[in-house]
C-alpha cells in the first residue's frame, strides 16, 4: 500500500541549541510520520574533529533529546538524528546512544535503536587513495598519505542508503542515531524509502535541515508535507511565515552554487523549481529534480592538530603611531625572530590582526588606504607547544610596548592593554586537512550499523 504523503516535524536546525517546546508540541498534534533533526556542521570549526570535542555540551544534548524521546514514546513517532555531536565521529554517536539509554532508564521507556557509524578506518582510506579513488572537494590540495595519517579522525558523509538499510533490516525501529550524514538525509530518507520523487525528497531535506530558517522572520520549528508531485512547508510558530521569497532565498544558503547541489550519489537540480504561495504562511514547492551521478562518492572530512596558540590584545590611539603601524609590526617581528634565533623560524607563526585596518577581510579588503582613529591589535602566535607560543607572544608584546618608532613623542608605552594575563593561552589549534570525495562501490560499504534495545 503506497502512501500519498509523508509528514515530517523538524523542531530545530541544530540539536543541542534548544528549541521552543510549544511549537514542537503543536507539530506533534499535526500527526508527523517522523521527527528528524540534524546535529552536524563543519561551520563551528575544525576543533571537533581535531580534538574530539562536541558542538554542544552533553547536558544541552540531553535536554533536547529528552523532549524528542518523550514524543517518540508517547506518540509512537520515530526519531532520526544525524551527525551526532556536530562532527559525527564514532565516539559522539556513542555519547548520543548513551544519552538515549540514560533517558530511557530514567523514564522507563523502551526503544529499538539503530546506531550508524561513519568514521573511516585509516587503512581503508589509504587503500582508496592508492587506487586513485579520492579527489579534492572544491579548492583543496590533493590528499596525501601523510595527511591521512596525521588526521585525528576522518568521517565520511553518508547518503540515505545506510538509513534505508537499517530501516529494511528492522521494521520496528524507533530511533536512528547516525554519525556524519549529508545534512538532508534524515528528512529525505522516508520519502526515498516510499518511492517519492527523489528531487523533492532531497530539496525538502535541504531546506528543512535548517529548521524554520527559511521563514520570515527566521525561526526554529518547521513542518513539511511531502506529496507525490510537490511538498509544502509551514513554520510552526504562527508569528513566522514561509513566503515564496523566503524559501527561494534559503535554497541558496551556504552552498557553492544556487541550484546545483551535489550530494552522495547525485546532484539536486533546482533550475526548474517553482515556488507557489499557498496561503499566508505556507509555500508549495515543485519541479526539483535529482540527477544520479555516474560514480557514487561520499565526502570525507578530517582535521589535525597543528600546534598551540597564545594571543595578546591591545589598543592603539596615538595617530603618529597608527601612521607607522606597519613598520612597527615589521620591526617587532624581526626583533622576536632575532631573539628566538635558536629555534627554527618555520616552527612558529606570528600573525598580527589589525582591527580597524583590514582586520576582517585581509587580502580581500578593497579599501586599501584608510586612516583609523583607533586600532585593535591582536597578535596571534602559533607554536609547537603552549609554553613556546606564550613565550614568543610575551616577547613580542614587550617589544611592541616599549620600542621607539619614527616621530614618537609619547615615550611611556605604545599599547593599551585591557586584559591580564597579558598573554592569553588559547590551547591547541586545528586545521581541516581532509575535505575530499571518495568513490565507493556500495553506498553502505564503509558504514557500520548496530541494532540495540534500550
Amino acid at each position, binding site marked *: 500500500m503506497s502512501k500519498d504523503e509523508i509528514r515530517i516535524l523538524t523542531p530545530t536546525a541544530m540539536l543541542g541549541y534548544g528549541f521552543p517546546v510549544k511549537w514542537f508540541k503543536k507539530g506533534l498534534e499535526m500527526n508527523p510520520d517522523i521527527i528528524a533533526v540534524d546535529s552536524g556542521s*563543519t*561551520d*563551528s*570549526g*575544525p*576543533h571537533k574533529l581535531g580534538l574530539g570535542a562536541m558542538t554542544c555540551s552533553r547536558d544541552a544534548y540531553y535536554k533536547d533529546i529528552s523532549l524528542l524521546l518523550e514524543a517518540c514514546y508517547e506518540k509512537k513517532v520515530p526519531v532520526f538524528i544525524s551527525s551526532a555531536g556536530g562532527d559525527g565521529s564514532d565516539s559522539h554517536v556513542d555519547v548520543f546512544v548513551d544519552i538515549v539509554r540514560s533517558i530511557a532508564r530514567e523514564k522507563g521507556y523502551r526503544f529499538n535503536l539503530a546506531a550508524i557509524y561513519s568514521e573511516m578506518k585509516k587503512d581503508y582510506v589509504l587503500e582508496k587513495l592508492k587506487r586513485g579513488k579520492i579527489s579534492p*572537494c*572544491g*579548492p*583543496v590540495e590533493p590528499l596525501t598519505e601523510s595527511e591521512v595519517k596525521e588526521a585525528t579522525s576522518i568521517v565520511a558523509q553518508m547518503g540515505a542508503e545506510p538509513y534505508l538499510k537499517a530501516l529494511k533490516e528492522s521494521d520496528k525501529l524507533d530511533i536512528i542515531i547516525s554519525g556524519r550524514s549529508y545534512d538532508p538525509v534524515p528528512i529525505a530518507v522516508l520519502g526515498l524509502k516510499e518511492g517519492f520523487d527523489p528531487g523533492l525528497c532531497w530539496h525538502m531535506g535541504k531546506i528543512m535541515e535548517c529548521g524554520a530558517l527559511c521563514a520570515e522572520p527566521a525561526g526554529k520549528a518547521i513542518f513539511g508535507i511531502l506529496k507525490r508531485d510537490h511538498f509544502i512547508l509551514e513554520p510552526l510558530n504562527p508569528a513566522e511565515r514561509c513566503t515564496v*521569497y523566503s524559501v*527561494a*532565498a534559503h*535554497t*541558496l*544558503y*551556504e*552552498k*557553492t*552554487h*544556487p*541550484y546545483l547541489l551535489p550530494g552522495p550519489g547525485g546532484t539536486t537540480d*533546482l*533550475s526548474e*523549481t*517553482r*515556488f507557489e504561495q499557498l496561503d499566508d504562511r505556507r509555500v508549495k514547492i515543485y519541479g526539483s529534480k535529482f540527477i544520479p551521478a555516474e560514480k557514487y562518492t561520499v565526502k570525507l572530512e578530517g582535521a589535525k592538530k*597543528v*600546534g598551540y*596558540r597564545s594571543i595578546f590584545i591591545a589598543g592603539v590611539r596615538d595617530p603618529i603611531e597608527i601612521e607607522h603601524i606597519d613598520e612597527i609590526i615589521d620591526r617587532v617581528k624581526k626583533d622576536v625572530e632575532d631573539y628566538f634565533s635558536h629555534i627554527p623560524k618555520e616552527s612558529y*607563526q606570528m*600573525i598580527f*590582526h589589525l582591527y580597524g585596518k583590514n*582586520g*576582517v*577581510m*585581509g*587580502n*580581500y*579588503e*578593497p579599501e586599501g588606504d584608510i586612516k583609523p582613529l583607533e586600532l585593535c591589535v591582536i597578535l*596571534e602566535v*602559533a607554536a609547537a607547544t603552549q609554553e613556546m607560543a606564550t613565550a614568543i607572544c610575551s616577547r613580542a608584546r614587550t617589544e611592541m610596548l616599549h620600542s621607539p618608532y619614527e616621530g614618537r613623542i609619547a615615550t611611556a608605552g605604545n599599547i593599551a592593554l585591557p586584559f591580564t594575563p597579558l598573554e592569553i593561552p588559547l590551547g591547541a*589549534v*586545528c*586545521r*581541516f*586537512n581532509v*575535505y575530499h570525495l571518495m568513490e565507493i562501490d556500495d553506498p553502505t560499504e564503509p558504514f557500520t550499523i548496530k541494532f540495540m534495545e534500550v
Partner: protein
Amino acid sequence: MAKMVPLKDIAKVIRSKNAGPFEMTLDIIFKNKEDYEKVKASGVITKELIAGLYNLPAEKVLAFVYFDAANAIKATLPRQRPQGSIGETDMHAAQQHVPLMNIMVPWE
C-alpha cells in the same frame, strides 16, 4: 544618463557565508522580479567585477550565477585559509559581503 545607486539601497539581502571549510559564498537577493531583472539587464554585475572587488583574478571565482527562481545572484570564492585554522579572521565568513554593498547600478 541613468542615476547610479548603490546596491545596498536596492537589494533585500546582501550576505556572505561559508560554503564548507574552504569556500565562501556571496548572495545578493532582490525584493522582486522587477528589480532583479533590471539589475540583470544592466550587465553591471559580472564575475570580473566580483573578482576585482576581492582582489582576485576572475578564474579564481568558483561560481558566478544569476538564479532567476530566487531573484538572486550568487558568487563563490575560495577562502583565504581553511576555516578555523591559524590566522583566521572570520570563522563563518559572515562579514565578507561589504564590498558588494557599494556596487553602483544604473537606477531611475
